């Protein structure tokens, strides 16, 4: 092979491997401008989830760039025609210690940094499930019932009873007050579903036979998508809902209106 051809091949191979980290990093750098990034966060704890995501993303990004850089350099360096033959070597305690200990330390670091967020979102329910939290919510605002393939929202009657005749039921549309800690009781009537509101950074599986408490505090009014994030059958793709965050007074008015509508005499149908 001519020297020029070898040189061009080496350049092409190195550039090919270089394209991976360059394109990968470019995707992330331009993601926000292209609308590929996360939807707006509107929940009280969403910021902590995003912080954890960013933390892990940075750790992964640095490792990725360094590894890819090393790979490109090796491709370039050892494709030289005059480079020495590969040498077989077996075992290096030093190297093994490093590549075991460094990831292990990173994992321990991640495990400790996420504990506060996990406890806040999944353990410290606002009804005082964890004793050192002040009791801010006495009862669930609503029961979220997942079934193949829709969401139903059941609001208790004035006494907080979910069994009574005055329970308000809503299909698809879930109304909640803004700036209020909302506790919901998540249930499923058939298979596994997952209650996922991207704008709240909230995702929780619904398990048949279990009543799982879920809480959130939405800080901005608006309507957000609610989707099922657990493949639950052939109609999974159509299992959607909408969560409407309303000002406190509008929420109260909606609920009062829905209660009155229960006792309609049918003239508006």
């Amino acid at each position, binding site marked *: 092979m001519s020297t020029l051809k070898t040189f061009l091949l080496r350049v092409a191979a190195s550039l090919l491997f270089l394209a991976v980290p360059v394109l990968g990093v470019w995707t992330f750098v331009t993601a926000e401008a292209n609308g590929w990034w996360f939807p707006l966060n509107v929940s009280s704890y969403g910021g902590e989830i995003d912080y954890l995501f960013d933390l892990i993303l940075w750790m992964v990004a640095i490792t990725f760039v360094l590894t890819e850089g090393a790979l490109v350099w090796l491709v370039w360096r050892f494709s030289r025609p005059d480079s020495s033959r590969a040498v077989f070597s077996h075992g290096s305690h030093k190297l093994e210690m490093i590549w075991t200990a460094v990831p292990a330390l990173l994992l321990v670091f991640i495990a400790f940094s996420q504990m506060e967020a996990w406890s806040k979102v999944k353990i410290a329910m606002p009804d005082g499930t964890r004793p050192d939290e002040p009791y801010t919510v006495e009862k669930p605002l609503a029961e979220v019932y997942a079934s193949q393939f829709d969401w139903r929202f059941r609001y208790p009657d004035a006494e907080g009873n979910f069994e009574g005749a005055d329970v308000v039921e809503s299909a698809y549309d879930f109304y909640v007050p803004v700036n209020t800690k909302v506790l919901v009781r998540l249930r499923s009537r058939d298979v596994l579903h997952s209650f996922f509101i991207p704008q709240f950074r909230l995702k929780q599986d619904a398990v048949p036979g279990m009543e799982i408490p879920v809480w959130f505090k939405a800080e901005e009014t608006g309507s957000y998508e609610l989707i099922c994030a657990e493949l639950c059958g052939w109609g999974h793709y159509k299992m959607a809902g909408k969560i409407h965050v309303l000002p406190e007074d509008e929420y109260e008015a909606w609920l009062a209106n829905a209660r009155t509508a229960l006792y309609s*005499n049918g003239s508006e149908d």
Partner: protein
Amino acid sequence: MSRNLVTAGVAAALFAGCSFEPEQPVLEHEPNAKAIAENVDLANSPTAQDQLAGALEMLFGTPEHPGYMRLESWIEEEYDPNQGSWNLSDEEFDALKASNRAAFAKQIAAIEAGDLDAVARPRYAPDLWRRYEALVAEAPDDLNATYADTEGTWRDELVYLFEGYYPSLTATAEFYRQQCNHCHGPSGGGDGSTAPYLNPRPRDYRPGIFKFTALANKARPRHGDLMRILEEGIYMTAMPSFRRFSDAQLHGLADYVELLAKRGETEILLALDYAADEGFGGLEKVQETYEFVLDRWEKAADNVIVYDGEVPAATPERLAAGQRLFLGAEGEGANCVSCHGPTGIGDGPSAREVDPETGLERYVKDEWGNEIRPRNLARGIYRFGRRPIDLYRRIYAGINGTPMPEHFGMQIIEADGSKRALDEDDIWNLVHYVRSLGERPLEVARHDTSGNEEHAEGH
């Protein structure tokens, strides 16, 4: 070298196969096998079956191009059943406009800003886009110029196109194929590919019978009844709420379901009327059947059940009276106990029968030939609405196509032995009693064993 060529060829073939919009097979209407089998003459004549399919295509079009045939008199009267939007009330039209405004917010904002290049093609509504493109082709540079057909400007006219969008039957047929076909089937026979796996089975529209309406006298459903099913879904069945679509899309679906139901009814009636020597009785007879079917749907609105007054409160007296009616046998009370059982859990003796073919006991069958269980009232879960008025309507008019009969006006015997017809007040008593079964199932069960001894001895 040849190996590289093969690799390149495979890669090219793979890329070529990756189409973002795969071609869909063209849907075709399927004949109603059950209706045809019931008429021996028709079942034996493939020619007549072809004629029937041809007549239906003439009257209702194909799944690709659906549409009602307009009779000459309709054209004179300017009546057109293909224009679903003509039937909307003012409030419905306002709601439709608000919903379209949200659905086409980007397009409308672009038009209002005068930037027509920024108007993106909506993800659905191909008919709307065609009309829009045709209109834009004629639009002057200055959108503030007066539009000839109206008093407003061109800008208003373009906005109105989006705001007042109501899908054509053809556009809806495509939407039906995407969302409904896999359960309800191309002709609405409830025989789509997922149907065998569902319980209860998807509705077969073809007999024109719909279980859940606000109507009495087994009337055909109104547009509003179908809309409510699309919006709320049917609880604890595979029919979900379709609220994630715009009002316009749902109105279109309701119109299309109506078309399929009318087509199915016409098919059944024509199949029934066919005789070997007379055929289908000529074009006139076919048109007569067509008009008869459409007319029956027109009259639906006269049958809405509305209670004149406020929903009465559930007093202990009403609950006691309701329980008496619930447990009373035929001719004495409302006879609910015969199917729903003394505790309302759906274990009454009339709910089951012996299958003549197998000799085994099973639940009785409904209009569509599926076994049907009486509702377990102790669970407090109702298929279609838990408002008192919803239960009132179920009891008042029964449930179409099922063994649940109409109760209004049936004969009952008072505690003092006098006979009278079951009236609206009695229905409220029943509604409250039935609701009490669902609210506190345990208490009622206890209550029932004590109150039911007499009843049990009577058997």
